[in-house]
């Protein structure tokens, strides 16, 4: 690999210098074969294990924004795209990668409505051009106690908010996601009240960390990761980051959100990553980093706001044990 000196002299690799996924997928397969070969006496055993994963997806490139790139090692593309919670495509984490092929992401529109001076409907092309795309490497902490590190591509949600020009009555923002039985087999199960909805307070939504996301790992979003457009809120548990958004509503009252409606004692409206507030059924003090922490490694400590202390000022004076 050619290591270039960055024009800005910052000692962080450019997005393009991070090992391309085809290369590290190949390495993983090779090492899997080595391990199986050494232990089972035959390299052939691993042939089924190395799942081919050249996605053939459309490339989407953007300059890495160093201000928003954690130094943690990015999760393997293979893991980030085959271990997903996306119940519209099945409840097993392996389901979405298998079944999300039926999602039709083009044409796609997102309607912006509610307390805005400029209600509008944006197609994908308009969304792509709304603001300059940038790559950001965020930690992602799931409420279930595992985490990943993902290079996303998008721009701050605030750019879209600015364009929509909310009225002073807009206090919250609501994300409504696609719910189409024809495309989403999981909707047959009334697990939650479809469509899946999520929401933020206006100041949270305007925080520069909140990313309107169109791609990851240098390509457009894979279907199972919420194609074609989602939000990523790295200081909150993963389920707050709504996928496959079709509607963004600006509202006066705190919106009802999907998991919160189902089990308010387990999934709060805020759901900020907080090691001090346990989930009723497990501790949130630690987490397992997918693909990196070995089988017998201790879990790593979870950081307040997932390490994004920038957002702390949004919650000053709030009792975060009460507003979990």
């Amino acid at each position, binding site marked *: 690999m050619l290591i270039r000196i960055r024009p800005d002299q910052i000692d962080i690799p450019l997005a393009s210098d991070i090992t391309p996924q085809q290369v590290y997928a190949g390495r993983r397969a090779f090492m899997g074969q080595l391990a199986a070969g050494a*232990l089972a006496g035959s390299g052939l055993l691993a042939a089924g294990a190395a799942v081919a994963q050249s996605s053939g997806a459309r490339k989407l490139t953007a300059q890495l924004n160093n201000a928003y790139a954690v130094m943690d090692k990015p999760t393997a593309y293979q*893991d980030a795209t085959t*271990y997903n919670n996306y119940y519209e495509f099945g409840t097993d984490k392996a389901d979405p990668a298998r079944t999300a092929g039926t999602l039709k992401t083009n044409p796609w529109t997102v309607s912006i409505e509610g307390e805005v001076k400029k209600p509008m409907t944006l197609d994908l092309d308009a969304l792509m051009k709304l603001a300059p795309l940038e790559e950001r490497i965020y930690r992602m902490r799931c409420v279930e106690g595992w985490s990943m590190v993902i290079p996303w591509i998008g721009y701050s949600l605030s750019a879209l908010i600015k364009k929509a020009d909310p009225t002073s009555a807009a206090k919250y923002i609501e994300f409504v996601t696609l719910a189409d039985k024809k495309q989403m087999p999981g909707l047959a199960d009334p*697990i939650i009240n479809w469509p899946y909805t999520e929401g933020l307070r206006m100041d949270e939504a305007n925080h520069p960390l909140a990313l309107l996301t169109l791609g990851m790992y240098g390509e457009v979003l894979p279907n199972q990761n919420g194609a074609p457009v989602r939000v990523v809120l790295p200081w909150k548990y993963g389920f707050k980051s709504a996928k496959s958004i079709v509607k963004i509503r600006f509202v006066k009252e705190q919106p009802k959100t999907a998991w919160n409606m189902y089990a308010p004692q387990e999934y709060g409206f805020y759901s900020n990553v907080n090691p001090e507030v346990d989930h009723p*059924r497990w501790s949130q003090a630690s987490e397992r980093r*997918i*693909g990196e922490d070995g*089988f017998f490694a201790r879990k790593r400590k979870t950081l307040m706001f997932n390490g994004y202390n920038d957002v702390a000022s949004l919650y000053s004076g709030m009792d975060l044990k009460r507003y979990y």
Partner: protein
Amino acid sequence: MKFLSNLSTQRVRQLRNVLFVLCLLPLVRLVAFAFLNRLGANPIEFITRNTGDWALYFLMGTLAITPLRRLTGWNWLVRLRRMTGLYAFFYVFLHFTIFFWLDHFFDFQEMWHDIVKRPFITVGMATFVLLIPLAATSTNAMVRYLGGKRWQWLHRLTYVIVPLGVLHFWWVKAGKNLLAQPILFASIVAALLLVRLLSPKNRQWLMQRLNKRGVGINVVKE
């Protein structure tokens, strides 16, 4: 199918040997998957859930042996029960070990905190602890030592243990509203327990009805 009602001791022993190997397959599969890198992105979650699933299958299977024996008249089935019961304990033990080792790294205090604070873990732990005396008294020598009556009373703990195992599973799944499987398991266990509550006469009537509908294979001769 007639020959199945009268299996020789030797046949039963052979059958038990085959079953012994079959019951190990879930563990063999997990070990093979570990070496083949096929446990997925979150291997510990995978083995935790998988050993828990198998523990439940074996618990329910063991509870099913007596009703199945009555339904079919295959009395030799009871001679497989000790082994399936011990396998249930084995998979529960693996499930617990993963929790104690890979989740808590043998930190007893931390584990205890989890057990008292979280009802689903309390119940899971109770399932494991209550199984220990049953496993410990599973040998012929222990049956003799306790005497048949007392041994039987002790082993009726099964009727508490299996529902506790299902309740543990239910609470695990309830958080994400995935109740189809827990409901199925609870119904199976409820049916297996209810059959035992019927009077011998009613039970015979039910078994014969089931038999007529082709569920059973042999009419029970009593």
